[in-house]
């Protein structure tokens, strides 16, 4: 069980979403760290589960498109994964924490480092991650 948590920089905001999934941590970990599975619930990417690995994620929707530049900053198998998330001038950190529970796993996702004034980014992250984590649960369930 991971006790360490990323402390957001002073004056910044985080989006935190927790979801209990009826799956063991190992199974969720695979979906969080295998590139092809990430593409199914998050975005196409060239992720590798290695500390310091730099990768890109790309998205497009309705004719809009973008790239997210990321770097793996923490990797503790089956318990914690963190990567930076830089896109459109907003630099944040995404941290996943997995904690086993009776009947499954509590998954916590925190995206930290938002400028409190950037309401659009915060609202978008909350809405966006809610959708991503729903898809993640579906992908884990199929695996």
């Amino acid at each position, binding site marked *: 069980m991971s006790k360490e948590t990323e402390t957001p920089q002073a004056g910044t905001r985080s989006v935190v979403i927790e979801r209990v999934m009826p799956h063991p941590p190992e199974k969720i970990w695979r979906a969080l760290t295998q590139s092809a599975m990430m593409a199914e619930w998050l975005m196409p990417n060239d992720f590798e589960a290695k500390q310091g690995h730099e990768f890109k994620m*790309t*998205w*497009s*929707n*309705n*004719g*809009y*498109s*973008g790239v*997210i530049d990321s770097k793996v900053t923490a990797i503790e198998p089956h318990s914690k994964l963190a990567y930076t*998330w830089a*896109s*459109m*001038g*907003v630099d944040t950190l995404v941290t996943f924490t997995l904690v086993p529970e009776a009947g499954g796993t509590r998954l916590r996702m925190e995206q930290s480092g938002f400028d409190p004034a950037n309401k*659009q*980014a915060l*609202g*978008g*992250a909350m*809405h*966006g991650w809610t*959708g991503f984590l729903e898809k993640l649960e579906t992908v884990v369930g199929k695996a």
Partner: protein
Amino acid sequence: MSTATQTKSIVVERTMPHSPGKIWRALTQAPMIAEWLMKNDFKPEPGHKFQFRATPMPGWSGITNCEVKEVIENQRLVYTWGDGTESDSGLKTVVTWTLTPTANGTMVRMEHSGFRPEDENGRKAMSGGWPGILERLEKKAGEA
């Protein structure tokens, strides 16, 4: 040096075994549009401003601001798609629907125009998306 920008389009044509009137209803009734395309507050009135809503992504609110430009019942529908304000990319495109009766149904032509060179990734993705959207449109028009 010229400042003119070369833009690209996506064109998808599909012959559907339905009357233009049936397809027109699916193209212009908000609850039906929500089923084959996206949530929206469309009205078939020139000048009406409406939005399509999708999942937000970094740098994009998930909203596409649109405005109805032309409405010729059962024949032609034009609306803008993106007003340049929703994302840093400044996407401003136009969607034109043209319905032409055929012996057994209707030829539906969708043209999505105005993609600038910097919109190329989005254009490619939409090129892959529109054929499936027209397939859903055909299905929904048939259920109506």
